[in-house]
């Protein structure tokens, strides 16, 4: 790697990233915290260790941005919510520990929809993050800050969380790659919980190769997260050895609810794949139509439970308005949560409350089984599935923020992947005539994460063939 070769120093890399971060912060509102002092200190230490000839790790001196729902002692962990303001975590998330053990340096915490509730980063206590291509438009969400930080080339990678599309959708709104791994691949220890049965840790980067390296570093079973799967990442699966792939396309997803620009991008990609000899398989998956309804029952139920811990007693914001304990809970939560947090808590308690449990929650849990079965059947017929991520390119700031159902509909093609626990990879797919980013997603069977990335890298390299541009500037030529 170039840093280790002393061609460039960690300090100069981190300094450049911080300068860009400060500059774009003024226009795009990407960060909730900038880590100037600690980041430069760490970079200087890495440079010293390199001079001594020490092994400094695979990400030595590489600056990165951390979504502000990952706990670490550097800066307050707020999840972009008022109720967590003032909370500096004594513990550090497993994923952060693993990245930093390889020498990565966090330069800033990125903005999100508070508690990752949203599809635009407008539900943030710190105000919206602006789209990297158009300042009048949303960054996507909930990991909007991370997507924009990578798209504007402030950092080569950023962390994200994806409960219903929160990595893949902002990735496509900003023209970068975003991976939501198989459920249970990367430890969730030390990450603010949203919907525990679908929450995943993943990454944004400019190319699939970098995502692969990040997964090699962070994937793996963690005794501190009982839902991590036994180590599997990077183990070869013979199923994917054939260079000719069968790519499934879901018939129902190509309809008038999807913007013409996205349907065209999908069609172009299909033609491109066909031209390379891959086989296209048309899939009928009628239950997927109900994924969004099931998602907006199951996840709010889990949200209501996960957010019940925020009581103003042990950490974060506490309301001054109260003269007794119960009033303190109620006022702290009313003042500390954003409107969308409250909506989801209320919906969650509604679908779980007696009299409605069977009609909503149990029904959604059964729909989830049908969705999983449809995916299992689909992967008997194909290797990967290619779909849009969202029905529209980045929409205008303020356009949907007052209409919760319109905002939820943005997630219609991403949430089924979470309900089934599958890996999904957002890939850039050109631009609209107005210069907005377009993206698609590749979905694979459980544990096919590395194969998905490999396939995406092949597609990417083919389309870059003839170009001299490479991604290797910072991650370097692998050793």
């Amino acid at each position: 790697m170039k840093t280790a070769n002393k061609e460039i120093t960690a300090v100069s890399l981190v300094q450049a990233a911080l300068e860009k971060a400060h500059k774009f912060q003024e226009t795009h509102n990407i960060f909730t915290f900038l880590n100037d002092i600690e980041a430069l200190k760490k970079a200087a230490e890495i440079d010293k260790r390199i001079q001594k000839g020490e092994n400094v790790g695979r990400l030595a001196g590489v600056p990165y941005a951390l979504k502000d729902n990952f706990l670490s002692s550097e800066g307050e962990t707020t999840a972009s919510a008022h109720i967590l303001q003032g909370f500096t975590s004594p513990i550090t998330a497993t994923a952060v520990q693993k990245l930093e053990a390889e020498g990565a340096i966090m330069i800033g915490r990125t903005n999100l929809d508070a508690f990752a509730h949203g599809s635009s980063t407008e539900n943030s206590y710190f105000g919206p993050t602006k789209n990297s291509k158009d300042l009048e438009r949303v960054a996507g969400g909930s990991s909007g800050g991370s997507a924009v930080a990578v798209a504007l080339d402030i950092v080569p990678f950023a962390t994200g969380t994806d409960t219903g599309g929160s990595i893949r959708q902002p990735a496509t709104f900003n023209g970068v790659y975003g991976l939501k791994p198989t459920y249970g691949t990367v430890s969730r220890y030390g990450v603010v919980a949203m919907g525990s049965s679908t929450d995943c840790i993943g990454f944004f980067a400019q190319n699939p190769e970098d995502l692969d390296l990040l997964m090699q570093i962070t994937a793996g079973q963690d005794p501190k997260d009982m839902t991590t799967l036994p180590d599997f990442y990077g183990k070869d699966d013979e199923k994917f050895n054939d260079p000719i792939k069968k790519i499934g396309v879901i018939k129902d997803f190509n309809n008038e609810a999807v913007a013409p620009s996205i349907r065209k991008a999908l069609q172009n990609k299909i033609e491109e794949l066909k031209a390379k000899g891959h086989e296209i398989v048309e899939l009928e998956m009628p239950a997927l139509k109900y994924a969004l309804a099931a998602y907006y029952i199951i996840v709010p139920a889990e949200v209501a439970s996960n957010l019940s811990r925020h009581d103003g007693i042990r950490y974060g914001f506490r309301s001054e308005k109260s003269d007794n304990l119960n009033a303190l809970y109620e006022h702290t939560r009313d003042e500390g949560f954003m409107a969308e947090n409250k909506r989801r808590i209320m919906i969650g308690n509604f679908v779980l409350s007696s009299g409605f449990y069977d009609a909503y929650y149990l029904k959604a849990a059964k729909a989830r089984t049908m969705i999983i079965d449809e995916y299992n059947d689909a992967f008997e017929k194909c290797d990967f599935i290619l779909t849009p991520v969202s029905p529209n390119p980045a929409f205008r700031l303020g356009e949907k923020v007052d209409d919760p159902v319109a905002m939820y509909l943005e997630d219609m093609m991403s949430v089924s992947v979470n309900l089934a626990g599958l890996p999904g990879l957002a890939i850039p797919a050109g631009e609209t005539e107005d210069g907005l980013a377009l993206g698609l997603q590749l979905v694979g069977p459980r544990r096919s994460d590395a194969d998905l990335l490999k396939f995406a890298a092949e597609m990417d390299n083919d389309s870059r063939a003839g170009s001299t541009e490479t991604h290797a500037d910072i991650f370097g030529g692998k050793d």
Partner: protein
Amino acid sequence: MEVNQEVIAHLAELSNLALTDQESTRLVSDLNGIINYISQLDELDTSGIEPTYQVFEMENVWRPDEILLQDADREQLLALTKEVRDNQIKVPKVL
């Protein structure tokens, strides 16, 4: 199912939220819109289908019953709260 102010008040109590009148009014229309959308699940025939609550594929993850080294000690955790007396967190009166 029609959500009204009474339902909102009940849910607010379950949710420990001291909603303002304006918020309650807004939530009546928001929740009705959302419930109207999620009710489309009624169309789906789920007879004979088992529910799925997690996609983890594994059950009963065991570990030895030993105290693991904690990432944060008592002092660090108490430092996060507003007021501490004798190693206890001070709160307003309960009743």
